[in-house]
């Protein structure tokens, strides 16, 4: 029996310090997937890493050994000393739980900003990398594709996506509570990232006229500036731009704060104490949170903004429930597919047995009829092959149908006895573990029906 395991940590389970270490690790060049050949018990492996989560999704035969291996891999990859009690930050989801969790992640229900669109792209990227490393096979291949389509379904059928929008909405509302009118205020966008751009767009739509963009890479800055009709600010002159800006939306990938308490304090006098509102979307933070203590300076990070939307929590919860319903539905569908997997070996062995009989009989026939030319031989081959196909067609359809029933085991057992396959199925099972890829098309067909 193949198990699907999801092991990892996210913003809910790991404290900021560990997460920040993750954030550093997630910018590493080395991908832990290259270690797959050294993991004896792990069959397929995908490594998902965003700034708020690190997750390993893998399949295995024997649970505890594989989990231990992956934990060790995680520890070495993130570079945590063995003194840090990793286990308390980790969650380990098995089988259906793992599937459900992955669907939740893909649908952005598990994100820090629920509904933010970035996570799906990050998952796709993780999948692409895994394909490059050839670490995904039958099960994870299908699971990942399924998670993408679930995410799409959740996005179109619920308003969960608008929750992320509501974070930017909350930012705009807060700005209104601070500045009153925001039309004549200047917005400075530091760094990029979908959430930050979303917020910037929201400010533009609410009538902000002047926008400035600062980015480490000039090309990106120019690109953003064109999109938001903004002026660009050299990254080096960032602190000077604080004098002119009123609202700062920051989301760089910097490991340390880029604007310190002192930087702001020193510029407040020059600003004649005009209020300055920081929206810090970055993790780790870009703005020293202590700056919030300065008079007329307001620093909000993404958690704070989440707090603001607690106002319409009810609405959000009902959307989340709707999304979870979809996910539960899709999880069950996936379970059915997983279960059909154990039907497939039966079908395969039925076919193999038939094929073996056909080959044997053909060999006998051809040896008795040496005068046949190639065309005639071919005709006989096609004939026998189609007889077998047609003969087995109905039993196979029957088996596939039963694959989703609870009583499946009974039918499988019956089939094995009927075709006298008890010995052969063991062989096939072993063969499948070695090269499941070979049987992939079969599984897909089985699942589609």
């Amino acid at each position, binding site marked *: 029996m193949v198990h699907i395991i999801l092991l990892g940590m996210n913003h809910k389970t790991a404290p900021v310090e560990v997460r920040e270490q993750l954030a550093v690790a997630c910018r590493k060049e080395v991908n832990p997937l290259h270690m797959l050949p050294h993991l004896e018990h792990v069959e397929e492996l995908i490594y998902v890493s965003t700034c708020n989560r690190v997750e390993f999704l893998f399949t295995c035969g024997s649970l505890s050994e594989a989990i231990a291996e992956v934990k060790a891999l995680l520890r070495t990859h993130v570079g945590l000393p063995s003194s840090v009690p990793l286990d308390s930050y980790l969650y380990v989801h098995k089988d259906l739980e793992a599937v459900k969790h992955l669907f939740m992640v893909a649908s952005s229900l598990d994100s820090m900003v629920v509904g933010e669109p970035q996570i799906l792209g990050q998952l796709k990227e993780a999948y692409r990398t895994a394909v490059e490393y050839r670490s995904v096979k039958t099960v994870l291949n299908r699971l990942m594709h399924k998670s993408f389509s679930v995410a799409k379904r959740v996005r179109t059928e619920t308003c969960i996506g608008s929750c992320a929008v509501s974070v930017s909405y909350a930012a705009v509302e*807060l700005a*209104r*509570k*601070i*500045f*009153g*009118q925001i039309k004549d205020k200047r917005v400075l966008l530091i760094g990029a990232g979908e959430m930050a751009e979303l917020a910037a767009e929201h400010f533009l739509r609410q009538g902000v006229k002047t926008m400035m963009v600062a980015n480490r890479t000039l090309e990106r800055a120019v690109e953003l500036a064109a999109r938001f009709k903004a002026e660009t600010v050299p990254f080096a002159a960032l602190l000077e731009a604080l004098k002119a800006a009123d609202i700062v939306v920051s989301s760089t990938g910097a490991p340390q704060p880029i604007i310190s308490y002192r930087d702001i304090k020193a510029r407040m*006098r020059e*600003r*004649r*104490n*005009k*209020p300055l509102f920081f929206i810090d979307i970055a993790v780790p933070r870009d703005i020293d949170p202590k700056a*919030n203590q300065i*008079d*007329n300076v*307001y620093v*909000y990070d993404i958690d*704070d903004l989440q*707090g*603001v939307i607690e*106002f319409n929590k009810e609405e959000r919860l009902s959307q989340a429930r709707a999304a979870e319903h979809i996910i539960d539905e899709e999880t069950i569908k996936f379970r059915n597919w997983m279960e059909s997997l154990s039907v497939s070996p039966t079908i395969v062995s039925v076919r193999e047995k038939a094929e073996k009989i056909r080959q044997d009989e053909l060999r006998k026939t051809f040896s008795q009829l040496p005068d046949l030319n190639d065309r005639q031989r071919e005709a006989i081959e096609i004939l026998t092959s189609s007889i077998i196909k047609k003969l087995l067609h109905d039993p196979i359809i029957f088996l596939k149908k039963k694959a989703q029933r609870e009583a499946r085991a009974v039918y499988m057992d019956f089939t094995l006895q009927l075709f006298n396959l008890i010995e052969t199925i063991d062989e096939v099972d072993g063969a499948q573990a070695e090269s499941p890829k070979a049987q992939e098309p079969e599984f897909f067909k089985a699942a589609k029906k």
Partner: protein
Amino acid sequence: MESFFLVIATLCYLSGTIGYFIYLLKDREVLPRISWTLLLVGALFHGAALVMRAIGMGHFPVTSIREAISLFTWVFVVTYLVIQVKLKLRILGSFVSPLAVIFMVSSRLLPTQAIRTNGSFRSGWLIAHVSSIFLANALFAMLFSLGIMYLLQERGIKKKNFGLLYERLPSLDRIDSLAHVCLMAGFPLMTAGLITGFVYAAMVWRSPWNWDPKEILSVVTWLIYAVLVHERLTVGWRGRRAAWLAIIGFSATVLTFILASLLLAGHHSVISKNFYG
């Protein structure tokens, strides 16, 4: 008749305050409209009582601290009613109307004993002095209310803990700019009030400065507001500090008004024993 009118006025102010208080908790548009009307009716009765008093005594009704506070309350309420019509900032009423009730009730509790002067209550200088000082203080009381509103709203935003008031209170900028207007209107009036006071003192007591405790405290209060005006205009002081200073300034004003009149010796005082001719 006069005290009956005053009781009606007090009840109107009180019920207006209750209306404004409910409005603070519940966003119903009728509430501030009713409350404003109640304050207006109260002000009309109050005004009528003051006119009766003035006619009855034949001079400006500021001969006792009770009269003075009563008149000040009236000026304050009328100032608010006018500002409300101009600004349409309804929630301000919830913070201003309680002050009106407090002033009104305290004026009933304070002694009626007359301030002894040499009977020059009909002087134009005195009227100018009292009315500009009262108007200035009415604006400063407004500034005090705005300061409290600002601090409440700012606290919510800073602590990221939004209570009931977050939705109800206006933006920080709005409160602050209103406070700015109140300060910039109130400060020249206060200055004018002090100057006319000195002129009046010079006429009555032959000297503009008599080291009267109320004079000293008034100048101290004036200095507090002068600092606030200066800092606002030069370095752009605003927000929390400005709000605190406005609150301190008005507290000092109240202290000046009540303590100096009541307890300390001097010619503004009620119970002063030694009295300049």
